[in-house]
């Protein structure tokens, strides 16, 4: 039996060979009983393997795919956690691609200044449109609250969905850092004139962020489970979405003449 032909039998059976290769195979198979037997066995095996007429993805509707992409987006870490977040994308991409020479060069300070300006400035590239609208209206607290809620939502979804792989414990180091930053933001926000519903929600979120920030550095399945239970019992993700909708509606009202 020829090893070369033997390894081409699948392609031959599936009709994937070029005509000259198929001819070579055919000639060999006609003369070799072992390869004929292999081909017969291969065809039998292939006949048993189920073939799908419709790819599984086609069984899902458009609504499913929209929700799928949104679901992925909601689970992504907040852009603020990445370097250059908030800058216009082209500048950020350029800096990212050339970061070593740029940072090594004397222009690093100037770039840091630009980065600071962009970081503190509008983040229209990634933020939802109503935030930009509210900012335009000069409502700083609303903008900050909106931003705080978005970051909290992304973080809590991430905590809810994180699954440990076999043998690899969950690492919540980033989440702990993020939650500490959000505790500070919550304290600042609670000192601002917020409506009662938002103030209550910020208070509840602050508590859960403190719990998350205090989970053990090592794999702390118990601590994370408590945080998850807190998220669910207090219905926090729903409350965040509701408050965001109210803020969006407020922005739209202010926008309309």
């Amino acid at each position: 039996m020829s090893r070369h032909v033997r390894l081409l039998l699948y392609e031959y059976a599936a009709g994937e060979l070029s005509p000259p290769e198929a001819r070579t195979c055919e000639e060999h198979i006609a003369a070799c009983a072992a390869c004929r037997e292999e081909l017969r066995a291969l065809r039998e095996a292939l006949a048993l393997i189920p073939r799908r007429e419709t790819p599984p993805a086609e069984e899902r509707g458009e609504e499913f795919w929209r929700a799928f992409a949104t679901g992925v987006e909601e689970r992504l870490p907040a852009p603020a956690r990445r370097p250059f977040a908030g800058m216009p994308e082209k500048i950020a991409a350029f800096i990212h691609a050339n970061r070593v020479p740029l940072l090594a060069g004397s222009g690093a300070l100037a770039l840091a200044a630009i980065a600071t300006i962009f970081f503190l400035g509008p983040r229209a590239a990634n933020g939802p449109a109503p935030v930009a609208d509210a900012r335009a209206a000069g409502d700083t607290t609303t903008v900050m609250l909106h931003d705080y809620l978005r970051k909290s939502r992304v973080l809590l979804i991430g905590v809810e969905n994180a699954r440990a792989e076999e043998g690899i414990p969950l690492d919540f180091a980033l989440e702990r850092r993020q939650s500490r930053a959000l505790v500070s933001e919550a304290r600042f926000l609670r000192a601002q004139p917020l409506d009662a519903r938002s103030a209550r929600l910020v208070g509840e979120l602050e508590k859960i962020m403190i719990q998350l920030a205090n989970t053990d550095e090592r794999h702390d399945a118990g601590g994370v489970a408590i945080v998850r239970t807190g998220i669910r019992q207090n219905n926090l993700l729903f409350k965040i979405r509701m408050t965001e909708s109210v803020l969006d509606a407020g922005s739209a009202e202010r926008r309309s003449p």
Partner: protein
Amino acid sequence: MPVGDERQLISRARTGSHEAFRILVERHMKHAYNVAFSFVGNHEDAADVAQEAFVRAYGALPSFREEAGFGTWLHRIVMNLAMNRAKRNRARAAHEVEAGEGAPAAEGPPGEDLRGHIERALHELPTLQRAVVILRTMDGLSTKQVSGILRCSEGTVKTHLFRGLKKMRAKLEFLQEDPR
């Protein structure tokens, strides 16, 4: 937003653009879903695995060196996650069977039984053979594509395919003698 080419999208996603990454997700999600489904065999797990793969891909973008295309790289992530999920599902099912030992086995429809035998035979193959058989025969990928995903030579893909199919046939031989 104008749709740039994939490299541009990756570069923007690396700097934190969710918008750019969403375009990548929309381009590759159905393919990722189909690959996951091939391994896990049900819609719920396929959706879960495919979503998880995108989230991980986003986190790993800084280490993506673009030696392979984004699709090939993602395919590899999906496949690894899906194989782990399938393994976990099988372990859970085995545990449930063990726990329910003594109870009379439910008699499924003949088609269900045949599919079960095939799935079992497929999952009993060594990991690489199983991956090659699924990717090549069920997902319809070419030898070259599979070799890119599995990071091995085309010759290795052919060898694994040949051996995998041979083992499957041996395991399923009894079905042909006594088809149910």
